[in-house]
């Protein structure tokens, strides 16, 4: 039989791992042929809805988390709930709670983060703090120490944090990283999942907005950051004139190549020492099964195969950060990649991952990315920022 799979694992290590796992799967089950349709992320997102609602829908597709893509597909009953397979295969032991919640919806798709499981992801990612070891002698343990280092770097004529926000989305990562110091992971995920009573116009969200606007006003970010692209910003960091860069683990390979042993990775410290780590993070696009699939059992076996312990080993070998639990002795411990693996393990153990805000509503990416540009440019006060975003959000939440 043939299993048609649409994925977007087309780059570097991602492409290598899926090729390897597909090969192993077909060796293990010789009666199954995998017909792989690889597309870029953008291409997949724009064609997916038409494909799964068409007459010859694929069996397994990668559908992006959140209401805009997965939510709409669930509401249209185009994805099959996987809760039965979850119990058979014991998937809930493989992931920390948030990573499973992110792929859950109620059957009418009105509630996000609860209800049935619809897919599993392979890769994890964290947005954290890259630091230049030549400039940062001691890694800060509290937010206050971190801010003191920023001020000192500014006085020394350095750019304390490299940041480019011309592409609009990096601002979300910057704001949410700071938000993790003020709001609890539960509060942020309640907001993203639109739990009862969740609101953006809360003191913690305003405090985070005030803090990051203060950094912008103090000149802690790259000059003219709203006009600087994302890539030029991290490339400047590699030139060694800046102590810090707030960015995602997808840059690890590039940064390690450019800076060698001079770069380290950590999580932005909490306001007081010893608190559980909190960081913005997430997981790759989940593999889901379409309701049109004639072989859901085979599809489930495939999804199980590409997310089990053997898959975790393949992911590590191909330079990826597995989202699922990694068997002992497999994870690297040295260098930048070692920092990332240990941060991921600590975060998952503490349930400290906060989800991307733009999952919240179908239009939230546009709403918040524009608002953050205005906040950081001083066009909006922190109060106007949280109230304005909440107004957009409640329009949607009211329609649930």
């Amino acid at each position: 039989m043939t299993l048609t799979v649409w994925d977007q694992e087309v780059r570097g290590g991602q492409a290598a791992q899926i090729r390897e796992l597909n090969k192993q799967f077909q060796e293990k089950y010789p009666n199954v042929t995998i017909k792989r349709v690889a597309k870029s992320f953008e291409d997949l997102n724009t064609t997916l809805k038409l494909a799964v609602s068409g007459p010859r829908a694929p069996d397994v597709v990668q559908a992006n988390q959140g209401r805009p893509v997965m939510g709409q597909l669930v509401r249209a009953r185009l994805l099959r709930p996987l809760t039965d397979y979850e119990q058979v295969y014991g998937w809930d032991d493989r992931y920390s709670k948030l990573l499973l919640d992110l792929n859950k919806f109620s059957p009418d798709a009105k509630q996000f983060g609860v209800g049935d499981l619809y897919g599993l992801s392979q890769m994890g990612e964290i947005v954290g703090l890259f630091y230049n070891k030549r400039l940062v002698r001691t890694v800060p343990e509290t937010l206050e120490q971190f801010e003191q280092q920023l001020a000192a770097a500014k006085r020394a004529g350095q750019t304390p944090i490299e940041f480019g926000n011309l592409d609009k989305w990096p601002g979300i990562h910057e704001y949410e990283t700071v938000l993790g110091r003020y709001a609890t992971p539960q509060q942020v995920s309640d907001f993203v999942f639109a739990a009862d009573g969740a609101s953006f116009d809360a003191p913690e969200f305003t405090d985070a907005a005030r803090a990051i606007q203060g950094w912008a006003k103090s000149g802690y970010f790259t000059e003219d950051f709203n006009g600087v692209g994302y890539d030029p910003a991290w490339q400047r960091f590699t030139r060694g004139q800046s102590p810090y860069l707030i960015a995602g683990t997808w840059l690890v390979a590039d940064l390690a190549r450019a800076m060698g042993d001079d770069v380290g990775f950590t999580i932005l410290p909490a306001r007081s020492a010893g608190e559980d780590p909190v960081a913005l993070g997430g997981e790759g696009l989940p593999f889901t099964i379409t309701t049109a699939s004639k072989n859901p059992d085979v599809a489930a076996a495939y999804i199980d195969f590409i997310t089990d312990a053997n898959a975790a080993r393949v992911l590590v070998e191909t330079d990826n950060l597995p989202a699922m639990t990694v068997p002992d002795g497999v994870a690297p411990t040295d260098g930048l990649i070692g920092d990332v693996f240990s941060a991921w393990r600590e975060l998952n153990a503490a349930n400290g991952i906060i989800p991307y805000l733009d999952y919240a509503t179908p239009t939230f990416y546009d709403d918040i990315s524009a608002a953050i540009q205005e906040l950081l440019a001083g066009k909006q006060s922190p109060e106007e920022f949280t109230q304005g975003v909440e107004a957009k959000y409640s329009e949607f939440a009211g329609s649930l």
Partner: protein
Amino acid sequence: MSAIEPATTSSPASAVAAGVAGAEARPDWPLGGTRKEARPPGEPRRVGYLYVLPAFLILAGFILYPLGHAVYLSLWHWDGLTVGTWAGLSNYGDVVSDPALRAAFGHALLLLVFYALLPVAIGLLIAGLVARAQVRGLAFFRTVIFLPQVIAMVVVAVMWRMIYDPENGALNELLRAVGLGSLTQSWLGDFNLALPSVGGIATWVYYGLAMVLLTAGVQKIPQSLYDAARVDGAGPVREFFAVTLPGLRGEIAVALTLTTIFALRNFDLVYITTKGGPGNQTSVPAFEVYDRAFQSGQVGSAAAIGISLALVIFLISVLINRVAERGAR
């Protein structure tokens, strides 16, 4: 200016008129039946529809049907997947009443200055110069100035994003190199400058097109008109307004129509350079269409914006051609 031919008196239009006059001899109609008196000579026959049918079918299948379908979609609230709900004209109401969309249309109109007015003005200036003087290597310069037209807009946008980079961009480097460091800007990141900066790219791309159209037009103006103007004592400015400008009316209309359409359908430039930012300072209708149709699942609204945009383009084009024709009379 030896290339310029003297204007001939028999235009193609008058040749057609002569043909129609000749048809009064009432030849036998090979296919059109025998009741000649039922139809004035030269009027279209029904068999003519058969001849245009293949072209019409293609037009209908690829343009009219999608257009009609878009109009139909614009009357629904639809996310692209589930059953839509009837919206009536409310999607169109939003185009007018939603401040964000109104702003997007406002930005598009401001971009008209950079896409249409400035390139045509620069083109006219160059055409005026060419009309007066023999420029050595004109073909070469024309090619160089036209070159941006040949480059894909995506490439142009990526390149200008680098040029506009506040720290390492060519523009700020140049300003610093000539001692104007105080004028350096965050071109795409400044809330007031971003839209003009995006517009500046468009001016750079399209003035070559306007120039080629207009200099070609200038060479068609009879030299005798310039001679007459000079005999009457006209200076260069007077000559430009009395001879060159009226002679280029048709070309100006074409250049304005083309660049206006480019301005209003602008998507690629904004998508690559600013994604509508900072804030929403550079959002344009075509970008909103893409965003709503493919990103946020508001297909009906996207269709309504698209139809409105098509209407605006149609109205402005009609207006430009009306003005050009009225001036010609």
